[in-house]
């Protein structure tokens, strides 16, 4: 296939037509080979998740008693328990509240900052950006204690806003980075025209600029949502009962009673659902979000 292509004459004008069709046929073949590879990869990727789904539809006794590739006697009892026990479902609600709060806060502060990074040079701009990134680099274990002290000083322990604020540490740098890419793709002339037309900065930003970078806002929201949703250590440290996230509820269950694999699997399956919904809404913009990134 490669030989064919490199052997195809390319220099002369009459030879151009076959030179075009031949590689196209070759590429279609390559695509099909790639598709097979991709399907194999996705099967491997889905196997652990399928296995969890399988477990979630069986009772614990059934799981431990025999090995089956699919639930022969499927039951929704595990899910029913999660939806009826407040200790379980409140975990999802808590996670959802602080993740949403975090996404809103991250977007609100990152939008003007990303605009500044995309439109102006200023004293220490590059240092500022790198400093933001360094907040992703601290090993959490020891930092958890001062975090706890700091947030208790402000009386924020066991509130949703505490976790939302703590998660801005790693979400804000990412949000600034993605948004800046989208904003840089908008020509400056649009800003200048708006100012000449007498728009104030806030009015221009909200009525003209934001609609132009809608896709970027969606992608950023998805990434903030995702990273806040999967984080465990900070969320667990800053909460006790009222704002305890689902991930922490799951660890408690593991250590307390004997392991109920079915229940654990059902809870795990349910943690995937919200993110999967969010990704479905931004799927078309996601690739674009990174491509326009800051680098």
């Amino acid at each position, binding site marked *: 296939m*490669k030989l064919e*292509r490199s*052997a195809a*004459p*390319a220099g002369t004008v009459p030879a*151009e037509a076959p030179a075009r069709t031949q590689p196209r046929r070759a590429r279609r073949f390559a695509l099909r080979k790639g*598709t097979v*590879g*991709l399907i194999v990869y*996705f099967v491997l*990727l*889905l196997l*652990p998740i399928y*296995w969890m789904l399988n477990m979630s539809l069986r009772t614990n006794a059934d799981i431990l008693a025999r090995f089956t*590739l699919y639930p022969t006697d499927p039951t929704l009892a595990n899910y029913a328990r999660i939806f009826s026990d407040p200790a379980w479902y409140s975990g999802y609600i808590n996670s959802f509240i602080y993740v949403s709060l975090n996404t809103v*806060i991250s977007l*609100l*502060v990152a939008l*003007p900052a990303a605009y*500044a*990074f995309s439109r*102006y*040079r*200023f*004293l220490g*701009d590059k240092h*500022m950006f*790198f400093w933001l990134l*360094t907040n992703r*680099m*601290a*090993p959490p274990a*020891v930092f958890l*204690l*001062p*975090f706890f002290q*700091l947030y208790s000083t402000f009386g924020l322990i066991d509130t949703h806003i505490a976790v939302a*604020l*703590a998660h*801005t540490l790693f979400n*804000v*740098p990412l949000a*600034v980075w993605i948004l800046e890419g989208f904003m840089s793709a908008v020509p400056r002339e649009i800003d200048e025209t708006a100012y000449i037309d007498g728009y104030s900065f806030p009015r221009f930003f909200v009525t003209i600029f934001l609609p132009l970078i809608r896709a970027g806002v969606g992608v950023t929201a998805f990434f903030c949502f*995702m990273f806040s*949703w999967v*984080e465990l250590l900070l969320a667990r440290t800053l909460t006790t009962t009222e704002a305890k996230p689902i991930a922490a509820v*799951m*660890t408690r269950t593991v250590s307390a009673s004997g392991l109920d*694999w079915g229940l654990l699997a059902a*809870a*795990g399956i349910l*943690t*995937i659902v919200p*993110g*999967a919904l969010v*990704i479905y809404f931004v799927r078309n913009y996601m690739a*674009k979000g*990174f*491509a326009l990134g800051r*680098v």
Partner: protein
Amino acid sequence: MNKTYDNRAWFLVLPVFLVVAFSAIIPLITVVNYSVQDIFGPGERYFVGLEWFREVLRDTRLHEALWRQFLFSGLVLLIEIPLGVAIALMMPRKSGWAASLALVLLALPLLIPWNVIGTIWIIFTRPDIGLLGYAINTAGIPFDHTAAPLDAWITVMLMEVWHWTPLVALLAYAGLRAIPEAYYQAARIDGASDWAVFRYIQLPKMRGVLTIAVLLRFMDSFLIYAEPFVLTGGGPGNSTTFLSIHLVKIAVGQFDLGPAAAFSIIYFLIVLLFSWVFYQVLQRVGTGDRR
């Protein structure tokens, strides 16, 4: 794009600075404080200078954990980056239902809380109830990640590759999608081979996103905690005790706050140093038209 120099832009960055500084600066100062003091209790603390740093640097178990960590992060980068690029190359080029489906599937492992990732892999690899563990043992190969260090390493690596390769693939895919069709047409006219297209068009165009992928994967794999902790608890023995698991053992298990803080600072500086090098490279090799 030429940007105007205007320090008033700082007012726009100020909210970000305040929100992040609130959570970042005071804990950092506190940890530095711990690292130079011996703390017996509230109000009973003594300045010990760099004593904890010396103690930590002599700790042989820490050295082992550090090398283990470098090996782990190195393997992660060596496996996930090429694999992620390969997957991105196989992804559908045209947007449509196939591309949408592929993107949603690809993102699934990224959306699972980190301790749940560990749980999934326990369920998946247990010899009695796990699909993988059962299949391997049925095939006649004894496999138990709770007993054999090598099996534990293989399991942790499999989990890590399963969990994070999609991020690399997403980034690489985004980089590929940003290449204008004209480049491919030009290559076709020149009769370039698939390899030449990859080497001279796709790879250079992916340089930016790939460096970010390397940076993110380095930082996160070097700080990995929840997934291996849930899966293996650092064992068997100390074979999968990565740096942060060792750190938690000192900080929580032995409650040696001083050494743990000193260790945290060294740990942070290592990540910072490597990330800074990556960042510098990333700034240099980037295209000339941006800053």
